């Protein structure tokens, strides 16, 4: 059995009605927030604690959270905004949904603490358009918190004002990109912005803004309650704390598991019921489809941490672990992923708008066994031409899977070149 399983964000997994205020309070919830409101600690101290905990952004990029918070100029004139990113759209990822369903108050508490630490008075909680039930739970939780005086004007009788709004998105992948989310919040098309300027200086409505992932913010109350050292020690030296992994694919019991960082992939695989009998692990995408694929044998000896995944040439990303056993048609898997990206490209900048469709066409053709001579190389070149030249990281999201699939599984893809076409090449 894994130690410290489901201890931070997913701790109320099996608690009845855990999404209601009475249950959350009974479990010790909002104690940290009440203490902060009562004692008004220096905000810098909170940021220091978050830094010391080793908490990194759980949305995919893994940027150190405390450092991000410290970028906001607390003295800047005008409003400052906190945005919680619950637009969980990365294929293979479904862990934030569990937080929203089972633990919305912890997220609200985390947002309040973050807002306090950065001197923000307005929080926007942006949920993906498909999250109907999570949205209802968050709305109900927010209403409860507001009624209890935890959110809003004059919090708990103090002079503190922090307003909070839940916003339901309209359904697009790219709105999960933080600056696209800001555009959407402003009522515009969800087009990622060119950076710099970064949101910390010019974010929502041109004001200082911090965008954090749901899991990141929901981890904060526990960090402050049990101390940053406790949190840091759960994980490895370089990756503090726990991480929620949503395991899907060819496992017997797919699901969400919150494990300490540094847990071995083997353990995670066991938690999710393991592979079907007689099957071997062919490939794993460890952090949502935007991350590079890793061959199964390398994964089986890897540990689930930022540095552990880097060692196998990928990244922990959003924690969406997709397991593929030896039955998988990898060319088709890649084609399905590329169909997703060409469908979700916002169309703003040239390489992604034009390249995503092209890549998808090539991948489709290979998957159907209709590939033409040189298609695999072409697929690689086109993907490389997108990477690093787009406004947002979507370019990498297309390119990384393609290049890693080709790197590790070239023969499987070349098998998609139609024999007729192959003959032309061989016949020279």
């Amino acid at each position, binding site marked *: 059995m894994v130690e410290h399983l489901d201890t931070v964000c997913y701790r109320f997994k099996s608690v009845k009605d855990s999404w209601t205020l009475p249950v959350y309070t009974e479990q010790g919830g909002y104690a940290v927030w009440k203490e902060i409101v009562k004692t008004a600690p220096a905000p810098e101290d909170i940021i220091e604690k978050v830094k010391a905990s080793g908490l990194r952004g759980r949305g995919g990029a893994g940027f150190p959270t405390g450092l991000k918070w410290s970028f906001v100029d607390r003295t800047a004139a005008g409003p400052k905004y906190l945005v919680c990113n619950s637009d969980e759209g990365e294929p293979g990822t479904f862990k934030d949904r569990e937080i929203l369903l089972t633990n919305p108050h912890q997220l609200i508490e985390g947002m309040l603490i973050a807002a306090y630490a950065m001197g923000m008075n307005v929080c926007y909680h942006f949920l993906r358009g498909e999250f109907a039930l999570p949205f209802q739970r968050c709305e109900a939780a927010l209403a409860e918190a507001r009624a209890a005086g935890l959110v809003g004007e004059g919090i708990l009788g103090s002079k503190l004002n922090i307003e909070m709004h839940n916003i339901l998105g309209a359904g697009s992948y790219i709105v999960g990109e933080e600056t696209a989310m800001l555009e959407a919040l402003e009522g515009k098309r969800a087009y990622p912005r060119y950076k710099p300027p970064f949101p910390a200086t010019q974010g929502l409505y041109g004001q200082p803004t911090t965008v954090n992932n749901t899991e990141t913010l929901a981890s904060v109350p526990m960090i402050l309650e049990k101390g940053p050292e406790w949190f840091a020690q759960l994980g490895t030296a370089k990756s503090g704390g726990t991480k929620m992994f949503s395991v899907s694919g060819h496992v017997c019991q797919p699901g969400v598991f919150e494990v300490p960082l540094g847990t071995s992939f083997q353990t995670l695989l066991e938690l999710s019921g393991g592979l079907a009998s007689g099957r071997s692990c062919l490939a794993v995408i460890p952090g949502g489809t935007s991350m590079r694929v890793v061959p199964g044998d390398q994964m089986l000896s890897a540990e689930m941490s930022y540095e552990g995944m880097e060692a196998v040439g990928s990244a922990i990303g959003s924690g969406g672990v997709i397991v593929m056993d030896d039955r998988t048609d990898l060319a088709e898997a890649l084609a399905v992923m590329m169909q997703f990206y060409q469908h*979700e490209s916002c*169309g*703003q900048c*040239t*390489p*992604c*708008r034009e*390249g995503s469709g092209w890549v998808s066409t090539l991948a489709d053709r290979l998957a159907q066994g209709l590939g033409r001579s040189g298609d695999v190389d072409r697929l690689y070149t086109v993907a490389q031409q997108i990477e*690093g*030249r787009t406004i947002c990281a979507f370019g990498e999201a297309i390119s990384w899977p393609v290049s890693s699939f080709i790197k590790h599984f070239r023969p499987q893809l070349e098998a998609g070149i139609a024999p007729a076409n192959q003959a032309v090449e061989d016949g020279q």
Partner: protein
Amino acid sequence: MSAHAISITIDHRSIQCQAGQLIIEVADQAGIYIPRFCYHPKLTVAANCRMCLVEIAKSPKPLPACATPVSEGMCVYTRSRMALKAQKAVMEFLLINHPLDCPICDQGGECDLQDLALGYGMAKGQFDEAKRAVEDENLGPLVSTEMTRCIHCTRCVRFGDEIAGMPELGVMSRGGKAYIGTYLGTELRSELSGNVIDVCPVGALTAKPSRFHGRSWSFKQRAQVARHDCVGSHVYCHVQSHYTDAAHTIMRVLPRANEAVNEVWLSDRDRFSYEGLQHQRLTLPQVKRAGQWQTVSWQLALDLITDRLSGLVQTSDADQIAGVISSNATLEEGFLFQQWLRTLGVRHIDCRVRQAGDTEAITMSACPQIAKTLPELAQCSGCLLIEAFPRRQQPMLNHRMRQAALAGATVMALGSMRQDANYPLHVDHVVPVSTLSQHIAALVKAVLSLKDEGMPAVLSKSLASLEVTESIQAIASGLIGQASDLVILIGEPVLRHPDAVQIVAWAECLANLLSVQLSFLSEGSNTAGLRLSGCLPHMGPGGVPLSEAECGLSARASFQKGLKAYIVHDVMVEDDCMGAQQALMALKQAAFNVYISPFDSAHAREWADVMLPCAAGYETSGTLVNCCGDWQTTSSALAAADEVRPAWKIYAALLAWQQSEDTMQFDCIESVTQVIQHATQAAVAQGLHQGEGLVPEAIETTEPVLWGVAHWHDFRVDPWVRQAPALQAQHDDVMRVRCNHATAESSQILDAEYVQIRQGLTVGRFPLVLDESVADHTVIVPMTCAEATSLGLVTGPIEMEACK
């Protein structure tokens, strides 16, 4: 960001620049070209085409030069391996879905994509799939679409949002399916819509009227100044140069960049009016003999004019002759016109054909100019528009107003119609047109009471009984506290108002209280210039006031009186005159009339005895003075057809004839310009342009009366634009009478489809449309149609009833 000088290197060249500038700006200034599609210096940065990716030392990825600000010591490489690789990759992506059929594209030869593909494209691409096809949308008669060619740079979208203030185009759908469209399937309605053609870097948006009419490389480009409003936008006329049969045709008109005037933009009217020059032209000198028109030689025609006019002067006197000239004539045409006539002894010379009352007093005291330059106007802190509607009538000036308003200026309006503004207005107060002067006087009263200064006794008596409404109070408080940056803009409809003198007098009083100078918009393209050339009954060359004995009658007064001879230059009396019916009657009873114009007219054929074809707008050299007082001199863009002569030459010849000289005094146009220049400088030196202030009369609140307003739609302002087919197709609902619901109710015409307007003895029937932007007791009557001619409306009281 503070602007301090820093030093960067681009392609190993050290360059001084300001911190915060964008790399592409710095490179442009240094003459280093970085390829681009979406970047446009007048629009916000989108950084979406990625063509301007450059390498920057220490950056692992290439960065867009259009969006990356420079910083001290930055090393930029625009043609390094990394940069070129990125640029070529982007070019390949742009070309995969773009049709590679430049020979059948209207943009071919002047296409950014075509040009850059030459440098960054590959001879053969890797793309071997089916290309995307996009459905075209009908954007109206001006802009043609071929959306398959679109490269999604969004310049047109940003133009609509940021410059036109009318987001008509947008990006629909996403990814590879993204396309530019209106979504609603509407036609473009912005007065600046043609500019999307210029900003489009490819052949997706092209000019419908000139599409496939010629190739850019076969055009000759001539600098000219647009002729339809007092801004005088700078344009290029593109003239077909290869084919002799097209030598007299302007193929298209494009903006000529000038930061002080039109920046890089052009109004649709100025852009597409050139088409009108091809229609209904007078091409040969003709005289009427026994009711029949006969083509004659110039010699004969000029002889006849000289003989008949000299005869008339001898038998009766020169006061039986009047000269009427269009406000679009050039400075030189105007000068020679009046010089010829005044040499003949004629005193009645006028360029104001759309007046309801006498406005000599105003033109005496004020130059028709705005008190600021256009760039200054864009930075003003406040503006009051008095019966001024620049959005449609002076679009490029409105563009500056919009810039000012978006930068936070308080813009307010007082007039007989709501503003059709593309920016937020602080107050937009609509008052019955008959009560305009009393509302301005009320504004004076409100400002005086707010200023906390004792009201001067004279004014206090004049204003005693005047009521100050809440809106007037709001305008007054908006005006108070504005620094000298305030602009009070009098629209050209004010001079068509019967109370023009009192309106301006009270506005002047208001301006004095606020220590600002009044600004005037004027009709046509050269009202200011014609004042300086002496085409007013009370002013001579240089704008020098004439003695009482030298003063003549205004155009309208001369038509009212019914003289024996009229010389009419480029005025289509039936459409262009206030009180056209009376003017036509005067012309018909006269013994001898001369019509000199580029355009034929059925009415002129009835009343004229001699018709002389003169060169139109762009075909003639000359000077126009715009609303900022800038003298804008240009050379003719093309030669007019064989027998057509520039008007200045016609008048120079007539003048020489009159003076019985063998050699012409004015044998080149520069010599004419110089004479006016000297006269003007002398007048300015003597302070003759200052004039005396107007005296506002006592005024009291009166009940509004039902008035008709003679209205010239922006595409119907002069004969030239009225002949332009594309512009006329753009607006098909111009010939309706407009009034609001309340006015319609009180006139019992609510359900009427057609109404009859009666003024005095004349009537006209018009279709009616209810328009809530019109003030109470005010009826907007469209000019320039047969019914309007038979009504011959003069802005003022009317009767209106439903047509059975």
